[in-house]
């Protein structure tokens, strides 16, 4: 290594650090969901909380955490005192209060007490899993809440005074019409959230919907998905929500910083079963099983799966392919400086080809997807990955 070390070390020291906590409990499993979660037994919650403490103790925390994200599962399923306990554990690693602290809540689990505990602890952002306002669709997805509960939960969240509120919506659902989706978006906008996530339904393996798809009871319609994407982008832009990522829209200043940092290939530490981490030179996911995760911790081990060693070249590649999903695009300059081993001329070639095809735009060192490019972002990514190939084969 060269004289660049001190500078790089300095850069890392000041770069953000995320903390993701996976709370693996849900009251039941939604038909589309492949996230690791289970129905908690009587002592699961206590074992989980102890596990988080144990795992946190095994981590070599490099610097204070800047953003926190509690996802799941349904963190909102924990009792207020358990939420408080988890919050205390988290705060211990934040060097005071994090800049941003998101908690995912399913509408059915939102109560005044829980919100109070979270607000008190320093949570800044609440993400509500609305999915749809159509009773029939909520039912069809196996959701545990009603349309009315969504409004009630939203009102409580607003009343609790969280600085930022997000609503999750899903589209291209089986049986959903374009009109129904437009109305969902309209109803969401009417609630004036700070942030909106609109996800095109993905058929995930081992879900009820996947089974239906493989049995031919529901169909995949790429053309319809594309149309809904385009309609969503137009509708939200008109409503004053700026798109900042393929599926994410926010009012100024409300983009989710935790996620932005992830896409920029900064570091984050994941705690809890199935939580992913990217720090200390590796990326990987904790074992997606509460008991195995606890058993590992009992031996003083964080059981991880799909562990890869992070090289600057891999990070540069991922920063490009995942970063391009953001509307702001990717600034190549810092990566070029950090990774002389990357065949940049080949990458530039690929970029030029994609730009000529109307998929990418370029301003100085910043490349971004055009709208047309965004809707085929995965194909764009594979094109770019091919340019990185020579170097990755040797590392």
């Amino acid at each position, binding site marked *: 290594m060269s004289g660049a070390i001190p500078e790089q070390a300095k850069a890392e020291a000041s770069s953000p650090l995320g903390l*993701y906590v996976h709370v693996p409990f849900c009251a039941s499993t939604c038909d589309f969901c492949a996230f690791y979660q289970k129905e908690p037994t009587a002592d699961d919650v206590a074992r989980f909380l102890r596990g988080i403490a144990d795992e946190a103790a095994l981590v070599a925390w490099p610097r204070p955490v800047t953003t926190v994200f509690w996802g799941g599962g349904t963190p909102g399923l924990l009792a207020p005192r358990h939420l408080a306990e988890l919050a205390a554990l988290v705060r211990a690693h934040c060097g005071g209060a994090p800049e941003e602290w998101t908690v995912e809540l399913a509408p059915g689990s939102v109560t005044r007490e829980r919100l109070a505990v979270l607000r008190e602890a320093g949570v800044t952002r609440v993400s509500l899993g609305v999915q749809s306002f159509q009773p029939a669709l909520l039912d069809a997805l196996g959701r545990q809440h009603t349309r009315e509960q969504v409004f009630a939960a939203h009102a409580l969240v607003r009343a609790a005074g969280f600085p930022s509120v997000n609503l999750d919506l899903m589209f291209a659902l089986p049986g959903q019409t374009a009109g129904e989706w437009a109305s969902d978006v309209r109803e969401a906008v009417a609630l004036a959230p700070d942030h909106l996530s609109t*996800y095109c339904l993905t058929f995930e393996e081992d879900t009820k919907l996947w089974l239906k798809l493989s049995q031919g009871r529901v169909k995949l319609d790429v053309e319809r998905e594309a149309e809904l994407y385009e309609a969503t982008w137009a509708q939200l832009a008109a409503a004053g929500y700026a798109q900042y990522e*393929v599926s994410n829209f926010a009012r100024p200043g409300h983009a989710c910083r935790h996620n932005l940092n992830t896409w920029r290939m900064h570091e984050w530490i994941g705690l809890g079963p199935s939580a992913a981490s990217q720090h200390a030179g590796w990326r990987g996911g904790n074992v997606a099983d509460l008991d195995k995760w606890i058993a590992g911790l009992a031996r003083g081990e964080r059981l991880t799966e799909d562990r890869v060693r992070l090289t600057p070249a891999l990070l540069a590649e991922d920063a490009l392919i995942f970063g391009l999903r953001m509307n702001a695009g990717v600034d190549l300059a810092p990566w070029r400086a950090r990774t002389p081993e990357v065949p940049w001329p080949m990458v530039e070639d690929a970029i030029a080809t994609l730009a000529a095809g109307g998929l990418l735009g370029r301003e100085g060192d910043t490349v971004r997807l055009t709208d047309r490019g965004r809707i085929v*972002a995965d194909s764009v990514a594979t094109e770019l990955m*091919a340019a990185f190939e020579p170097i990755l084969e040797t590392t």
Partner: protein
Amino acid sequence: MSAKYTRNFCIIAHVDHGKTTLSDRLLEHTNTVEQRVMTDQHLDAMDLEKERGITIKSHPVTMSYRAKDGHVYKLNLMDTPGHVDFSYEVSRSLAACEGAVLLIDAAQGVEAQTVANAHLAFGQKLKVIPVINKIDLPSANLELCMRQLEDILTIPAEEAILASGKSGIGIIDILEAVVSRVPSPRWTEYPQTRILVFDSLYDSYRGCIAYVRVFSGAIKARDMMLLMSNGEKSEVKEVGIFMPKMVKTDILRAGDVGYIVSTIKNTADVKTGDTITIANKPATEMLPGYKEVRPLVFCGLYPLESDDYEKLKAALGRLRLNDAAFVYSSESSLALGFGFRCGFLGLLHMEIIQERIRREHDVEIISTYPSVIYHMVRHGGELLEIDNPVNMPDPGELIEIREPTIRASIITPNDSMGDILALIMEKRGVCEHTDTLDMNRVMLRAVLPLNEILVDFNDRLKSVTHGYGSMDYELGDYQTSDLVKMDILINGDPVDAFSSIVHRDKAEGKGRQLCEKLAEIIPPQMFKVAIQAAIGGKVIARDNVREMRKDVTAKCYGGDISRKRKLLDKQKEGKKKMKLIGKVSIPPDAFIKVLQNN
């Protein structure tokens, strides 16, 4: 036994008229061992032969029969290939005989192959014994068959033997007719040894095994033999006869049918139709009818995975060992990489070889458009033989292009006449003659360009005649035609594998069809991709590949990154398997699809 008591004959018939069944009956009756005892190599080929209902390799057999005149006769039954692709091979097998049993299915009557085979037999001056077979069938129409014999084949009806291979009727009559009507072996008085090669087989232990008919003289182990076509000498290791398994004998004499193993390894050196003589007392004239077989149909064969190049090369080498009519040489294509230019006797031959490469040698291949050999005449008179469109010179350099034709005999039900005539027209053919066969059927004689019947003619014929039509053909002359090279361009880049030589009047239609097909087969692409058909730079048809509509993962958070990377990696690997043409990744099966069903 002297040649006086030898009879050499074959059975000729249209597919399914009962040749196999009848042969088995003859073997049974003469107490010859059950026929289906074959070497492993035979068995490989057998699957395909059975599936296609055709014989590719000869299966001769020697039978012993005590005739009613009290004498024991040696009857050599030749099994002949039954497809027009192998008409030269058929003619050589027939040349090894003095007589032919011509089978006619009593319920079907005379068919195109019956006519073609009968003419081949007459051409070899064979005594033809007409047999109306399957007379046990309720639908048998003897009267009609008799009339067709006379009218179409000019064979006196009273010569016909009524038989049923299935019920064993007429078997003795046939054997007796072979003895009494087929002359004893001809040309036995020639002063030197002359032996006709009518087939050969490659054996990994013994090298090339020549299937032969001795016309005069004799041959035995340790003789020095001489191949008259090329003057090559080699020592005879073993001679024998087919029982039908190969059985070693001391000597083969005039009139005998058998095999010769020599020091020659390569079957390509022992050409069908060649004459073998004895080196120290050689004949001066070859037996008549020898021709260098020349492939008529060519295509490029490429390994689907470029890593399989060596494997493909080895497969072609092995196939060639057993099939001197199949030729290949290396070539390369911009689109497909390194591969081979291969020449075949005809389409069936091409299909069989391709199938064997896939089945027996386990190599996945892509083939380019089949082509015939065009004769192109340059200013100044130089004649070029072009079998690959890529090698066609600039039209400005040429004064004339000629293409091979065939003379086809097509038999069709009356009510399909109009459709058949339209088909012949569409294929640029000219119908020269029609004959009424019976109340329901007509026989047409037509001249068609060979390249027009290369791909789907037979299928089309079958479909317009609801399966009742049949065709046979022989090679005709070359004719001058207004032919052009049509290129296919993907995003402006010509794809050599898709180039073809077509008639100018048909170029536009073919071009449009090809563009449409490609547009349909190539998976949606990120960019706009234009497909064009062009003649000499002038675009005559165009289409666009569908644009990819959506390919984006909805959710990509921290936990999704590893998973997502794996997915993208897989996509990327998939892409590597594709052929990149004009910045478009084309899955290899697209080539197969385009090239196959057009």
